[in-house]
């Protein structure tokens, strides 16, 4: 394949993917539609966020892609090859949610095992393992049995096994789940690092904040159906612009007395952060200065993804408690 067509082949291509889970026994067979006619395409080099509440079908999608589950209909192609074939697996890394790594092995042994499965030579295995251990700050834990790893260490170890073969594309299912802020930051940096190297990253999450800061594009999944796919700023362009005003030197009573139009207010010590829509900005600034306060900064705030989706969901008449900050 020449360079031009390589660029044109999408890293991931999903068409018409449908899956219904059947469960129960003889007399009470029930079914739950996990995915319905999913269509998605990802160009190479993109970081894609696959968003949706728990149970929306994110994990099912990944399982179908990895060949763990068979779809009822539809097909997928990864790096140009059908998902049912093996060829692409050499160039792809996968990290499932809450990974269980063999607790009777040490990390070094586990990475070596994974390397063997990829068919890497022993020299290459050693080199890759050392590189990944350094990058993920696991050097000191290399010879600890995996059962002694904390949640954060396990997650990093999982990332290590996903990257062992230096893949072109990485699939991550809830990579930040259960991590403390430091862990989240580490994973975030890792993903950004991959992006810088031109890798494609597909990760699913229900934590919107993570998607916001990392993704080029997102896809929103709900009850097995893809609601929207697009660049973040495309989706958010529909939002009403708002501003965040940082003020100081005002008493609580004075803050309470400010004119309406303030959507949100957060008191931080002797300062306060106020959110106001575009139209009320001028009035607010004037009011603050009139009572002797100081306006420290004014920043435009685009409506967060969170608000947008809550709006979508309430518009559809549903409350969704699964969203997280």
């Amino acid at each position, binding site marked *: 394949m020449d360079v031009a067509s390589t660029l044109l082949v999408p890293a991931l291509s999903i068409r018409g993917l449908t899956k219904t889970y059947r469960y129960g026994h003889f007399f009470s067979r029930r079914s739950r539609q996990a995915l319905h006619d999913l269509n998605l395409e990802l160009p190479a080099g993109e970081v894609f966020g696959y968003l949706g509440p728990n149970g929306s079908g994110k994990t099912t999608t990944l399982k179908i892609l990895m060949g*763990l589950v068979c779809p009822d209909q539809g097909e997928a192609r990864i790096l140009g090859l059908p998902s049912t074939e*093996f060829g692409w*697996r*050499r160039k792809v890394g996968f990290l499932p949610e809450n990974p269980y790594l*063999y607790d*009777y092995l040490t990390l070094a*042994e586990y990475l070596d095992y994974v390397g*063997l*499965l990829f*068919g890497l030579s022993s020299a290459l295995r050693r080199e890759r393992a050392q590189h990944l251990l350094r990058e993920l700050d696991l050097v000191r834990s290399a010879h600890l049995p995996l059962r002694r790893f904390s949640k954060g260490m396990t997650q990093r170890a999982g990332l290590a096994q996903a990257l062992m073969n230096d893949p072109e594309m990485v699939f991550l299912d809830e990579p930040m789940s259960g991590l403390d802020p430091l862990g989240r930051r580490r994973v975030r940096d890792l993903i950004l690092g991959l992006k810088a190297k031109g890798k494609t990253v597909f990760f699913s999450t229900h934590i919107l904040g993570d998607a916001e800061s990392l993704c080029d594009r997102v896809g929103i999944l709900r009850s097995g159906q893809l609601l929207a796919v697009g660049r973040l700023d495309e989706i958010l362009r529909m939002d009403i612009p708002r501003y965040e005003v940082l003020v100081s030197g005002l008493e609580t009573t004075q803050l309470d007395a400010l004119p309406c139009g303030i959507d949100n207010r957060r008191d931080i010590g002797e300062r306060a952060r106020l959110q106001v829509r575009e139209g009320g900005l001028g009035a607010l600034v004037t009011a603050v200065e009139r009572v002797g306060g100081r306006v420290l900064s004014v920043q435009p705030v685009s409506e967060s993804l969170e608000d947008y989706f809550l709006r979508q969901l309430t518009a559809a008449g549903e409350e969704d408690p699964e969203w997280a900050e």
Partner: protein
Amino acid sequence: MGGMRRIAAVAANTFRETVRERVLYNLVLFAILMTLSGLLLNPLSLRQDEKIVKDIGLASMELFGTMIAVFIGVGLVSKEIERRSLHLLLAKPLSRDEFLLGKFAGLGLTLSANVAAMTAGLYATLWMIGRHSGPGLLAAVYGILLGLMLAVSIALLFSTLTSSALAAVCTVCVVIGGRFADVIRNMREVAPGAPGWLTTGLYYALPNFHTFDLKDRVVHGDPVGFHQLGWITLYGACYMGVVLLAALASFRRRDFQ
């Protein structure tokens, strides 16, 4: 080729896993203790001490080997499915067939190592009571090992079909049924009403573990010819082939939720 190397990798890892399961050590230790206890029984019985030591040694090898084969065999796949470590592996360029065969080979290695240890213990015990036994015992050991491999393959099949608890029960039932294969065939002596086609059919369908039982012949010094070993091996290999193919097919069709 790549496939064989991957199977070998899975097998080696499985071997490591079973060796590090401490349960194994207890069983092997127990088996060796049982053989030693044969020495204690000696003054209590009127029979030859050599015979008793051999009987107990071989019988405990078979009993504990079977327990290992069944309970670890059943866990091999079930555990990986239940803990979802399988998901990680199958995303690699490792086919489901290679995975299963690797597991089978790994446990086979483990069993061989255990049986070797127990055989060494048996020979040591015999040496301690002043009897030197030739390589004839090895025919019975070989038979035992064949039987254990067959039990493992059956355990593997059931573990691909259902949860580990149910798989263990089913495997134990089939193994016990197979041990009583001769009794089933002769059932007509005790229950003349039993339909012939049923008892015969059951006899051929169940794995005849009695076939691999060469303990008595060996202990009595009756020679076991190579061609007889050959037929037993063929039967065992054939049955194992059937079971493994079924296990591969069942495993390939499964959805891992």
